[in-house]
């Protein structure tokens, strides 16, 4: 059942290859970006992912932002790669079938940026708020290489975003800011890599490395060993532990959680058109994040967040009542009338910063052939193209072929989305296969055929969440109440398993615990 080498355990384990030219540890957006870029030069690439799908860590739970770099500290690697990554993005996603929307960022300067009671003469205060601060923001961004920044008057701010607080006094618009679905991008990159010869192994956890004479020789996993003299460590929050397994460490990842609230897109469509963030002076930030914002998702839901809370557990994707309140309070100022009642979901992701708070990218000095790509927190999604470019440079130096392949296929075909088609196209599909006319998820208008396609895609969806990431089933206002049993039944049918074996997101997360009467002692499967 394995296709193109992809082989989650639930589809029957395929043997790992005995050797590979390059092994990438981690199937997040960074690992998959590097793998896809590497296949431009060699098909001999293997990606190892311990979860049941790609994009299961930080890559699935962030705000989908392609930042410009304006929020980063000058002179950091982060800022350099962010600015470059943003500029590379259109080319990077070409042929992937994933939409990049450059909706822009509106930075709002408000009355509370410099409080009235600070003792400053009012004329001087307004001069700062409406001229000097906006001009400073623009100068800072231009200095970092960001193009197209422009200062907005108070009226222009309201024309652009009518729901912003009346406390706004001026703004800066950054047109390069974008949005992209981070998990759709990751899935597309992984599939594109597979189309070009790479193999992605899910449910495959790295447990160690074989290092001889100061060079990496093999990657040891729960499913066997792969010989390779080139390894990229793109394992996100676990990057320090994975590096330590090889003796190539020396940095520490301290997980930092971020929670985001998500609103019904029918209610919040156009509530904000761009990403909207409040400008705060240094020292006014309450958290170790850029402060977050209000923005549409790639699919049009309003999102508010994220928070930034240091946590012990790298798996801590919980959300506390205090966090939810904090988000509501924070955005009450910026968007006084935002529609609280349209809240449909909240999610939390774990960032992977190092103590230095900058990206750690480079060949290990201790272990030849081992490349760390660590500390990738926001703006990691925005920086992904530039990170991949930088890592490819390092890999070429370590022996990866330099000659681009003439047979590289530039296109990853994306399956059709019923909700985005014209009625004529819809009818053509229904005539081809009536499953295109069977709406499974009523809130998001997802048809049976889209679910089937997701299950049989190049990186196959083998559980409820994986189907959801590819099709949006269960992502709407009823949150799967009406469709969970239908999606589970299709998964069971297509995978040839019993419906009680269907999981939410891999091992240990069964959707159903038994069949009726089973707990009475009389049930049979």
């Amino acid at each position: 059942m394995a296709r193109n080498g992809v082989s989650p355990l639930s589809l029957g384990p395929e043997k790992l290859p005995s050797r590979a030219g390059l092994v990438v540890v981690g199937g997040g957006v960074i690992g998959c970006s590097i793998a896809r870029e590497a296949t431009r030069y060699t098909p001999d690439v293997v990606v190892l992912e311990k979860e049941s799908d790609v994009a299961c860590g930080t890559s699935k739970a962030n705000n989908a932002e392609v930042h410009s770099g304006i929020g980063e500290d000058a002179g950091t690697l982060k800022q350099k790669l962010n600015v470059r990554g943003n500029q590379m993005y259109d080319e990077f996603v070409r042929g992937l079938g994933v939409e990049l929307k450059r909706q822009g960022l509106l930075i709002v300067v408000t009355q509370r940026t410099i409080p009235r009671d600070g003792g400053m003469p009012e004329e001087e205060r307004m001069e700062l708020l409406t001229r000097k601060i906006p001009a400073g923001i623009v100068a800072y961004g231009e200095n970092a290489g960001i193009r197209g920044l422009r200062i907005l008057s108070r009226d222009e701010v309201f024309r652009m975003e009518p729901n912003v607080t009346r406390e706004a006094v001026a703004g800066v618009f950054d047109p390069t800011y974008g949005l992209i679905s981070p998990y759709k991008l990751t899935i597309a990159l992984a599939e594109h890599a597979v189309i070009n010869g790479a193999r992605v192994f899910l449910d495959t956890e790295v447990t160690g490395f074989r290092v001889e004479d100061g060079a990496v020789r093999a990657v040891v996993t729960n499913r066997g060993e792969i010989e390779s003299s080139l390894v990229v460590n793109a394992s996100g929050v676990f990057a320090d532990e994975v590096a330590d397994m090889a003796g190539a460490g020396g940095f520490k990842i301290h997980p930092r959680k971020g929670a985001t609230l998500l609103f019904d897109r029918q209610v919040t469509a156009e509530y904000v058109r761009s990403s909207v963030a409040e400008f705060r002076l240094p020292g006014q930030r309450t958290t170790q994040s850029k402060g977050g914002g209000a923005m549409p998702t790639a699919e049009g839901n309003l999102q508010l967040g994220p928070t930034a809370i240091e946590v012990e557990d790298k798996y801590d994707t919980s959300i506390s009542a205090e966090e939810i309140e904090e988000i509501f309070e924070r955005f009450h100022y910026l968007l006084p009338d935002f529609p609280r009642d349209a809240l449909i979901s909240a999610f939390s992701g774990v960032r992977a910063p190092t103590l230095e708070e900058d990206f750690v990218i480079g060949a290990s000095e201790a272990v030849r052939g081992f490349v760390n790509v660590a500390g990738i927190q926001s703006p990691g999604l925005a920086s992904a193209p530039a990170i991949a470019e930088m890592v490819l440079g390092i890999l070429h130096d370590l022996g990866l072929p330099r000659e681009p392949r003439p047979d590289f296929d530039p296109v990853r075909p994306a399956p059709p989305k019923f909700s985005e088609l014209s009625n004529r196209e819809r009818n053509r599909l229904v005539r081809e296969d009536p499953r295109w006319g069977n709406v499974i998820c009523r809130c998001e208008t997802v048809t049976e055929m889209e679910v089937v396609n997701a299950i049989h895609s190049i990186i196959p969806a083998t559980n409820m969440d994986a189907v959801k990431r590819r099709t949006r089933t269960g992502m709407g206002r009823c949150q799967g109440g009406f469709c969970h049993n239908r999606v589970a039944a299709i998964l069971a049918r297509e995978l040839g398993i019993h419906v009680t074996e269907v999981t939410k997101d891999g091992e240990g997360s069964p959707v159903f615990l038994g069949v009726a009467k089973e707990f009475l002692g009389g049930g049979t499967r």
Partner: protein
Amino acid sequence: MSAVRRPQCVVIGAGPAGLGAALAAREAGLGDVMLLERDFELGGILPQCIHDGFGSIVFDQVLTGPQYAQRFIDRVEAAGIEVKLNTMVLEMRGDRRITAVNPRDGVFELEPASIVLAMGCRERTRHQVMIPGYRPAGVICAGAAQRDINIEGLMPGRRVVILGSGDIGLIMARRFTLEGAEVEGVYEIMDHPGGLTRNVVQCLHDYDIPLHLSHTVTFIHGRKRVEAVTVTRVDENLKPIKGTERRVPCDALVLSVGLIPENELSKQAGVELDPLTAGPVVDERMHTSVDGIFACGNVVCVFDLVDWVTQTAERAGRSAAEYVLEGGRRKRRPPVRVTAGRNVKFVVPQLLREFDREIELFFRVEHPERAARTRVLVDGEELYSRKAKMVRPPEMVKAGADPGGARRELENITVEVVTEEEEA
């Protein structure tokens, strides 16, 4: 695409509301009635409601959900009403143009002379009541769990905590127990049960399932599958009281925290909604703000008795038929708005236009009250009054009043609850 069809009436949704409305429209003289249903069978939520308690008003009999539904299904089939199953309405416009899809017909368009909205309601989810914690498998709404067990034959939990004592939550406490699962308890944030008294007795007391009033779930534990929930006592402002947390091991959290009328299509068509009911504003003919679009059942407001859903459906179906047979030419008189007075949360219908027949008003109280009198005031004159030992939010009240066929201009109609204490 095939030619646009123009039925006399299209009913959206084939639960008790849609079935009743389609039949009423047919029986009132429409030959060309079409019933659209997104599920694979008729009956809406009723086929999964295998408990009894349905039909005492309409049939003077106690029936199960499937029995109640079947009586209408048989009649719909006998009446020659065109039924389209597995059919999802994709779009409805204010000029009554409907776009729908199903596997047989593909995408098709309808331009009916009238529409009856009968889409029912959906369940409020964990995020709408903002329960913090992880997002594991095993957090499920009570109605969805009911479908899993009674239709699919699947158990979504084995050791269950139920949050919310609405009727579905209570019924599912009993249902899980009968299936051999353990229900640790039912937790209710309010200081009174959310469901009918008979359900508290028959579903909890009879099975020794504890009901914890003034409690809520404040955290969901478990990264992959629910492992436990934290339950906490709440104060009079419904805020959790620090120090009263208790961790309850369980593998499923079942939520019965409210229902929301499904009005996404109504919004598309520009139908005016009442913020109090989250359903369309209707008049005594169940006519919405959009000409030729009627509504009935739980899409209008959440009823607790299916019999009353049927009554509104018959009214809507009959009105749609009258509307079509009159050629849509009847002039709609300017409405009088019905005011929700003291201790009344909402009233349906919200508008009254004609007073040549008895008015029937459905309403819900805001908070429980003893020794209460409900009354309807028409321009200050009390035209309906009824004493009750107790009024409670879960139990909807129906009041009738006859304004005496008045052709006179009315200004104000108020529904209110007064207590003996106050009157004294």
